[in-house]
């Protein structure tokens, strides 16, 4: 009965309204472009909103990755991203230049994420339920964030930016190279991830392990290693997110740096549909722009209400499309 439920759950029932979401998104884009052409102020807010969204996007994709592989919301994702960013800082502090440090950090992040799954999550997962794993993830969050403070202290540090701060101007609107790079890297990571899952054997094995673990085992997929791999990759994405965030002026390198970003990353991931990386990026960009526009143009949205506003959007999306914008509609059966 379980297998049947599984099958039923995974066969996407294609609703006849699948054109609504893409259409709505196109509409939003048109609105933004038109507004930007009309007002430099509007354009600047949109650009700056996209830049913020870019930062949330990378972390949101990491969340989606782990959720797809393990159906667990990884509360520790932000803390792991922070830890790996500090590792990058340390390497640079020891004399490495930026890009070698970046690359080495990604490698360390992969190994670290892999190891964390092995040591902290697998023992819990073996005997527990999802809720148990979520609690372990929360424990991991506390542990990892505490470790950062323990090892490197709680003060602020400076994290150099990968790209020298070059500003481009277009019709009175300023774009920074860093902002564009952040957005580009988020999109690139989604594309790479998609390619990985679609075209590589390992990617296929990971998808199989996530969707049909029993069947995957039967064809020789080492399911538990796939989970560790998923965590490793997510840690890499998190490292990218952390380093891009630290490069932006609004985020200082300190142990709590990803706390706020994680919150928006969750909202973005849910809005996009927890199983869609592209959805997460779109959700993140939307949130970034929306918050800036709301703050600028809607006077009754006071600064305190911006955080709840992101979640109101999330709630509205969920009530209309319970699996998020790009999530697959699930049919629940007994």
């Amino acid at each position, binding site marked *: 009965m379980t297998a049947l439920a599984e099958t039923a759950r995974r066969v996407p029932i294609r609703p006849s309204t699948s054109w609504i979401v893409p259409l709505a998104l196109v509409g939003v884009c048109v609105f933004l472009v038109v507004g930007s052409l009309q007002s430099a102020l509007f354009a600047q807010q949109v650009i700056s909103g996209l830049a913020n969204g870019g930062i949330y996007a990378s972390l949101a994709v990491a969340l989606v990755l782990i959720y797809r592989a393990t159906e667990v919301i990884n509360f520790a994702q932000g803390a792991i991203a922070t830890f790996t960013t500090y590792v990058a800082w340390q390497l640079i502090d020891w004399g490495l230049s930026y890009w070698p440090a970046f690359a080495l950090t990604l490698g360390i992040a992969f190994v670290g994420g892999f190891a964390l799954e092995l040591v902290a999550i697998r023992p819990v997962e073996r005997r527990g339920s999802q809720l148990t794993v979520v609690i372990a993830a929360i424990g991991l969050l506390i542990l990892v964030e505490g470790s950062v403070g323990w090892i490197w202290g709680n003060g602020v540090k400076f994290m150099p930016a990968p790209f020298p701060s070059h500003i481009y101007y277009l019709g009175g609107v300023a774009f920074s190279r860093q902002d564009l790079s952040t957005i580009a890297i988020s999109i690139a990571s989604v594309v790479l991830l998609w390619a990985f899952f679609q075209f590589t054997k390992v990617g296929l094995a990971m998808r199989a392990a996530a969707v049909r673990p029993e069947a995957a085992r039967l064809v020789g997929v080492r399911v538990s290693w796939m989970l560790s791999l998923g965590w490793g990759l997510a840690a890499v994405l998190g490292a990218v997110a952390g380093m891009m965030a630290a490069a932006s002026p*609004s985020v*200082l390198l*300190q*142990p709590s740096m990803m706390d*706020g970003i994680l919150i928006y990353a969750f909202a973005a991931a849910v809005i996009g549909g927890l199983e869609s990386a592209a959805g997460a990026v779109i959700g993140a960009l939307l949130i970034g722009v929306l918050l800036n526009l709301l703050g600028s143009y809607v006077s009754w949205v006071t600064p*305190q209400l*911006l955080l709840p506003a992101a979640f109101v959007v999330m709630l509205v999306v969920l009530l209309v499309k319970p699996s998020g914008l790009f999530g697959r509609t699930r049919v629940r059966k007994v």
Partner: protein
Amino acid sequence: MTRRMKGALVLAALAVAAAVVSAALASPAATPGVTKNSITIGGTFPLTGAAALYGVIPKAEAAYFDYVNAHGGVNGRKIIFKYYDDAYNPANTVPLTKKLVEQDHVFADYGSLGTAPTLATRDYLNKLGVPQVLVATGDSYWGAQYKKYPWTIGFQPDYPGESRVYGQFIRNKVPQAKIGVLMQDDPYGQNYYNGLLQGLGAAKSKIVDVEKYDATQTDVSQQVIKLKAAGANVFALFALPTQTIDALVVATKIGWTPVTFINNVSASPLFMGLAVKSGANVDNDISATYLFDTINNPTASTTKLFDSILAKYDKGADPTDANNLYGVASAWTFVDALKNAGQNPTRKSLMTALTSLNATNPFLYPGVKLQTTPTERFPIDQQILEQWKSGAWHPFGHIFSKAR
């Protein structure tokens, strides 16, 4: 039960009885926290969390106390300074303060940081008659509400006093000002804003836009963009360090170059340096200070003492972080008051000393005095403006005093 066991039980019972009796009879210490050769004080600070960048302050204070202890202490007593992390959450501050008072038996609550955290413990401490001294925030409560809370006293100049100086300066020196304000949307920001209005007087009509942010927003580009669009050429930046750095970078990024005023607690050279490294152009920005200018006077005896204290007792501390200098200046003040509290200090004598301060603190800017009376309870009341040039703050002009 064997005889031996009975005997053991009796002994045990006697021991317990003796302990209980002696505990009951033991006279309480004459003054909590004060022994023949030590004084224990304690405070709560945000060592972790979003406000952790102020966590260097208790370390600097501890370093100064270590220095004093190494030179004989105060009236023969060494200062023991215990501090705990409340992460800026009053729900932590209250139990930790109770711990300091009831378990660690501190003589005084010293230097605790944060308005809300110290408001949370103010009633408790005053009710028990525990001095709550040299509170580390710029709110005016500590000096203004002394009648109701006589055991509480602050240290630094209050925020409205500081921004009043900015307002006066703009009114007198920047006639064509069009002022844009970025402030935190809560009493912290409002404090600065009110002071600015007072200082501007009639010139407050020159304010063209006021933008607000919530502490959960680390990116304030949206607000800075609007300020530029409103045509402001003076930027009153009253924010926390994170948002200050962001605002400075964004302003440069979008090509906005107003005359910028930065509030003192966010203007530490450490933060300015971070802003510069992130691409901000902060030359000619203005702030205010009351601390000694160690950066431009490297050979002054104060600077040498400060550097040596950090090097010896607070290794790894950054001498360019003004928060460290703040800590040492505050600790100096406490030690001075403690000396004046007499050979056998009591909590009352400490408060008397703190409400009759009249000293020259070497860690303060020359000319800025430490001065209090029983009815005038702001220890530091004076500031001097400073301008950022060539990578450092340079004080200029005359010392402003807050006329009350």
